[in-house]
Each structure stands twice: as structure tokens, then as C-alpha cells.
């Protein structure tokens, strides 16, 4: 067992992910694609700027996916690899990526669920390979991700200011 670790998301990771997500949006004719870490943190967005609070959205997405994972296990399934939430105008399609990340696609009636599902499948494969390599890189390092010297001292000062001394 271990203590908490940290991981990092680099500029080059973001560039490659951005290209994959933008390709997906074009091919599926969807509006927005979001990548959310399973712990509830937003990693990347592409397409139309979301009109909702992305921080809250990420936390609820992770909770949604985790709760459904448990439901799947109750049925004897390992997981539900994808979820679909249908709205009157806007709908969401969520898919697991390498068991660590969730791909969320927001789309409306300019496209169909079938097309979104089809295009998501190939992008999930590419994203899975990318994230698996990224996690292997982190695991291979002697330490987890770290911030530059001076960050902690400065952050402590901010904590004292914000939360009182």
C-alpha cells in the first residue's frame, strides 16, 4: 500500500489529445468533447466552449461513472464501458479510457447516437494507448509528478491568506 501519488499532464500530451478530440468532433458532428480523470478532474476540452461549470461537471461525471461501475459489478459485469444520457436537445455519451479517464461527448440533434458511438470507439483505442503510455511514464519515474522549487512555500502563504492565520 502507498500514500497518495501525483501525476502530470504535459504540453505534448495535450497537443496529441487535442488533435484526437477535434478529429472526433468533426467526424461525429458533435459539439464538445471533454476528458475527465476518474477522480473528478477535468483534463481537456475541445470544440464548443462548455456553457456549464466545467469543474462541477467533471466531479459529477466521475461520480456518475463510478456509481455505474458498481451497478455493473452487481450484475456480474466488469464494467459498463460506456453510458448514454439522453436529453430533449442535448445528450451525453461517456466512454471509459484505460480505466483511468472518461471521454464525454456532448452532441445534439445534428448527429445521431449511432454515429457518435462509432466514432468514439476508434478514438477511445487511440486515447487508451496514449494514456497507458503516459501512466507507464509516470510509474517509471522515481518520484511522482512534482512542482518547481518555491511553489510549496508560496502556496503556503496563499493558504494562510485565504484560510486565515
Amino acid at each position: 500500500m502507498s500514500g497518495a501519488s501525483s501525476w502530470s499532464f504535459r504540453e505534448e500530451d495535450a497537443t496529441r489529445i487535442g488533435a484526437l478530440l477535434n478529429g472526433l468532433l468533426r467526424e461525429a458532428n458533435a459539439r464538445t468533447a471533454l476528458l475527465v480523470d476518474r477522480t473528478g478532474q477535468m483534463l481537456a476540452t475541445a470544440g464548443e466552449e462548455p456553457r456549464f461549470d466545467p469543474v462541477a461537471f467533471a466531479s459529477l461525471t466521475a461520480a456518475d461513472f463510478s456509481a455505474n461501475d458498481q451497478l455493473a459489478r452487481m450484475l456480474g459485469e466488469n464494467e459498463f464501458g460506456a453510458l448514454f444520457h439522453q436529453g430533449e436537445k442535448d445528450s451525453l455519451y461517456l466512454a471509459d479510457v484505460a480505466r483511468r479517464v472518461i471521454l464525454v461527448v456532448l452532441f445534439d440533434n445534428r448527429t445521431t447516437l449511432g454515429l457518435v458511438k462509432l466514432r468514439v470507439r476508434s478514438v477511445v483505442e487511440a486515447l487508451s494507448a496514449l494514456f497507458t503510455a503516459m501512466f507507464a511514464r509516470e510509474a517509471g519515474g522515481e518520484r511522482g509528478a512534482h512542482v518547481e522549487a518555491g511553489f510549496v512555500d508560496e502556496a503556503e502563504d496563499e493558504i494562510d491568506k485565504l484560510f486565515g492565520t
Partner: protein
Amino acid sequence: MSLINYASREVNCKLVYYGPGLGGKTTNLEYIYEKVAPASKGKMISLATETERTLFFDFLPVDLGTIRGFKTRFHLYTVPGQVYYNASRKLILKGVDGVVFVGDSQLERMEANLESMQNLYDNMAQHGLDLTRLPFVIQYNKRDLPNAAPLSELQEALNPGWPVEDPARQRPVPDPSRSGEMLVQEVDGAWVERVPHFEAVALRGDGVFDTLRAISKLVLKTLG
């Protein structure tokens, strides 16, 4: 698990408030939400029942501002305290960076406190996490109530200390928030470590920010 996002220049850390039902976890978050400057806080989300008991979690993002070019944010979560919501509790602990155990000081809640603490250890272990190696603080809430147990009894029950095996760590460490008290010390020939503890009356905010400040600093140290 803290996430350092070099692409969007963000650092995000996840803090979880754990403890028995009706102990004051949500009250802690509500007080923080009320007092933190509007620019520093996001939307507070509560997935609660009609009677305002936490069903899944409460969530409050708090921005520390931009530090060395990185937007730094704490994600504060509570878990549902009632025993039968364990599946939800376990989910919220995924990727946790720091834990606050909110204990209920009332004598008659001692058993519920112990049960919840044991449950916390078990659930952390199921995520492969060792609570003794993670930023962890205890808050004893409801100190104003006439039936509150003495602090020494609560400490003995919930924060008795775990053995320090590593010889390099077998040295006295004072408690930064309590003068004259120790976090690591030798007791009857054996080295033990306790976690920082705080007395609180969360309803009126006493001890709420002391607790948050302590856990935030402990989590940030793990990034350095």
C-alpha cells in the same frame, strides 16, 4: 492523486471529509463556502436526500490563485456518513490526496466514531492506500455540547498513534498547531506518531479553517 496539468497550467488536489453521520462534515463545507471570497470558490454541489442528509457527496472547489504560473485548486468532498452508504463512501475516496476525519465529540457517538474510523482504514486499504502515509488530520466537532467527551478520551480512542518503524523517523516532532504537544514521540520505549487534531464547533465556524489550513499544507508538501 494530485494532478499537475502542465498543458492548462493547473494543480488540483482532492481533500475528503470523512466521519460518522450527522458529525458535521457538510457543515464544515457550508461554512467554508459561506466565508471564502466569491472569486476563490466554485459552485457547491450537494447530492442530498430531501431531508438534507448527504446521499452521495458534497463538492466544493476552492481556488488558491495562481502560484508560480499554476492555477492551484483544492477539491473538497464530503462522504455520506450513514453506515449503509458504504459503496458511495468508497467511490469518493478514489484518488484522495488528504483526509479530514470529522469526529462527533458527544459521548454517545463514540462507537459511531470508532466504526467510521475503522471503515475509513478499510476503504483506503481497498484503494491500495495506507492512511498512515497520507496527509490526515482529525477534527473533534461539537466541542460546545454539554455531553462532549474530554479531548483526552477522544484522542485515546481515535488518535492513539501508530508505531514508527523507520529509524530515520524516530525523532521527536512537535505539533505545529499545539505548543508543547508532540506528533512523534517515544512512549514507554516505543516511537509513536499521532496525526494533528483540532477542536471545532463547525456550526459557528470554530476550528473549521484551522483544520482546512492544516490539511491543505500537508497535501501541498507532498508535491514539493
